């Protein structure tokens, strides 16, 4: 079930980034992919989707006390950071305007925040049963 939830998170994040890149103004896809050709417009959402889907699991490993602010800050940093990288080094997707940068970053950060928030809510609803003490 953990893998299924991770895949679900990945699909949401991947599709949100893909949607933002194609539809929002100020962002341009240089060479749109058509299967079997796979371009940067698919690889960038895939990498960003993987990063966003890993926020909650990684925070959980680092620290057990996860709150919404932490998830929001990490999602915001990842989103704004990755689109800033795109501004200077277009990887198949190009940031044309500041409005595009802000809009895409906000939409993607919101998507990443929501998926991790739901993941946290689900984990809190079904907590792992406490381990039984071993009989010596």
């Amino acid at each position: 079930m953990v893998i299924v939830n991770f895949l679900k998170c990945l699909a949401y994040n991947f599709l949100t980034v893909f949607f933002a890149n194609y539809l929002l103004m100020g962002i341009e896809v240089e060479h749109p992919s058509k299967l079997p050709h796979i371009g940067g417009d698919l690889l960038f959402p895939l990498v960003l989707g993987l990063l966003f889907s890993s926020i909650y699991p990684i925070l959980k490993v680092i620290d057990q006390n996860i709150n919404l602010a932490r998830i929001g800050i990490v999602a915001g940093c990842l989103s704004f950071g990755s689109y800033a990288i795109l501004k200077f080094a277009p990887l198949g997707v190009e940031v044309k305007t500041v409005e595009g940068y802000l809009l895409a970053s906000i939409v993607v950060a919101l998507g990443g925040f929501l998926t991790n928030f739901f993941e946290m809510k689900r984990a809190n609803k079904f907590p792992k049963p406490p381990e039984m003490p071993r009989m010596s």
Partner: protein
Amino acid sequence: MTYLRSLLISFLIVFFVNRISPGIYITHYQQIPTVMSDIVFCSFVGFLNASVVPCYSILDVRLTTIKIAIANALISYGAFIVIAIVPFGVEVINIAGILVGGSIVWLVSFFANYLEKISRSFGT
């Protein structure tokens, strides 16, 4: 909330498939704020696919995996067959468009509905 998530992923997967699947082309590509007919098509197919489990529940039909899969297959392949005949912002130019596009949309929407079915059976 589960329905909204299912609706969102069903919409996004149609949007994704329209752009990357071979044999499918967007005829009037426009960016926001001009929302064109391809977005209407994505919303419509997404809505239909996401409504499978709620509709079965309203009709008091016992939910089974096979029933969900059949309904999703009919909607997914049917939608691409319809736009192959009547282009509506999206154009299907060969059989690969129907097969690849329909299959991806079917798989993802089935997965979303299956998860919704599980969450309903847990009462969440």
